[in-house]
């Protein structure tokens, strides 16, 4: 039994050595002048296709998009379950129909909530 833990210990040592090795390699290569290091402005510019960005790339989106995404997500997740059920509708029978109705009802509570909280109104 203890030998098994010994193997785990060996693995641990190997992992630590490997990690250290991976960290040291690039530093060592840089130190030995094998990796060239001559930065220039063009090399350092953000690599993106199209035009150069003006201002920060992290643009703020309107807060409302988040609510819409959330409402969509609820529907999206519902469909994940509806699809396998719909494909096998005949074989699954009436009990599964009831189960799906309950599922839809639960999601519906969420939609009523969103509606009453005026999330669906775009101001």
């Amino acid at each position: 039994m203890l030998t098994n833990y010994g193997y785990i210990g060996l693995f641990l040592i190997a992992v630590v050595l490997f990690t250290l090795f991976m960290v040291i390699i690039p530093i060592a290569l840089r130190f030995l002048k094998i990796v060239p290091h001559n930065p220039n402005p063009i090399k350092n510019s953000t690599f993106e296709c199209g035009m150069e960005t003006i201002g920060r790339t992290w643009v703020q989106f309107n807060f409302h998009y988040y609510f819409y995404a959330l409402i969509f997500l609820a529907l999206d997740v519902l469909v994940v379950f509806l699809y396998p059920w719909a494909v096998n509708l005949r074989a699954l029978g009436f009990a599964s129909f009831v189960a799906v109705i309950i599922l839809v009802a639960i999601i519906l509570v969420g939609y009523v909530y969103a509606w009453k909280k005026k999330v669906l109104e775009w101001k």
Partner: protein
Amino acid sequence: MNLALFIPEITLLVIAAIVILLDLFIEQKRWLAQVSISGLVIAGGVTIAMWGGSYPAIFNNMLAVDNFAIFFKMLFLGIAFLVILSSTDYVSKFSKFQGEYYALVLLATLGMMLMAATTNLIAIYIALELTSISLYALVGFLKDKKSTEASLKYLLLGAVASAVLLYGMALIFGFTGKTQLGEIAQVIQSLPPMTLLASPGLLLGIVLLVAGFGFKIAAVPFQMWVPDVYEGAPTPITAYLSVASKAAGFAVILRVFFSAFGLPVWLSLNWGLIFAALAAISMTVGNIIAIPQANIKRMLGYSSIAQAGYLMVGLAAMGMASAENILGQSGVLFFLASYAFTNMGAFIAIIAISNKLNSDLIEDYSGMGKRAPLLALALTLCLISLIGMPPAAGFMAKFYIFNAAIQNGLLWLVIIAVINSVVSAYYYLRVVKVMWLGEAASAEKVPSSGALRLALLLCCIGVLLLGVIPGYAIRLAQLAANIFAY
């Protein structure tokens, strides 16, 4: 399939939906707490009526309806009842979102009830996430900086822990080809020991499961989130987290490790040893870091880590035990019940006091014995119970669980645990000393509402009952743990 056995869960779900909808359509918000409490009472009544019967598992063997599950369901419903009672004042801090608050508490309770009942890896994962996601939202409910920060930390660490847990489940599924706990046990027992040893996948899966569940029960080294979340969260939710979430974690661990990995013996000896080591580290780390804390919620956070350590002594005893010895399991159940009353009581007293003081610092509790004698007395009783001194419940719980450990040859662990209990007395008694011997900053009385007083009274009665006449509760715990006798 008999849907009648599922009525408690259905009730909670329906009541949660009703609370959300009611919140949208009525002006009188105080009805929400009453509706939630009535839902809990109905669910609790049905659950109690089911105690003692032997029912078949429901939903294609996904959910067991045995005494073990019913014991935990009663525990969770009781805790949720106390939490909602103690929240009735506190919700004024987020009065716009009362409906969501109560609904989320109910849904978290539903998740925990499912956690205690599931016998299938898929269902365990879903129940665990239902609990966790509700709790992530609840922790951030105050919407101030500390609360949101606590919530973010809890979410990120919790999500990583659940991913690790899931990876463990996937490995176990891959090794056995089953997700049903009983079937996993059959596959494992049918294999020759050499095959088991030669395939590290299963062992790695078990270790990852320990890590994932260890996060839920706040065992060292998976405890990083505990103090921050406990300090930042709304106090009723802190109480809920420290008691119910931990109990749910232990319920899952007991069921998974016993039904799936209970045999062969060398396997259970192995995970028993893991839990013994975790127990020793948890109590030591929790108790030592708790000593210098100045914030009482944070101190109780570290104390709950230490208590998880004592509880894991029971798990270790269970791993070491022979087939028909269920002392370890029933010890854990009894400890959880007494810990629930004790810690809920302590937190309810803190809610009442900090409602007035607007502070959780221990030094501000100075002179509480004069300003609010009853609250201070209740808090003292709960702290004494946390130390494990008679006549409080904590004494019987520790006595029972340490006894189980000694009988299964874990004397060294019990010695560590007893030393730890002595250390812990220092920081618990410091609060008591500040409250009774310190100078009061003002002579103003500390008011508390009827609901809070009722909740506190129930907790104190529970602590004393379990401490003075524990026989009945121990009998209940043994009956519940009986499903684990082979």
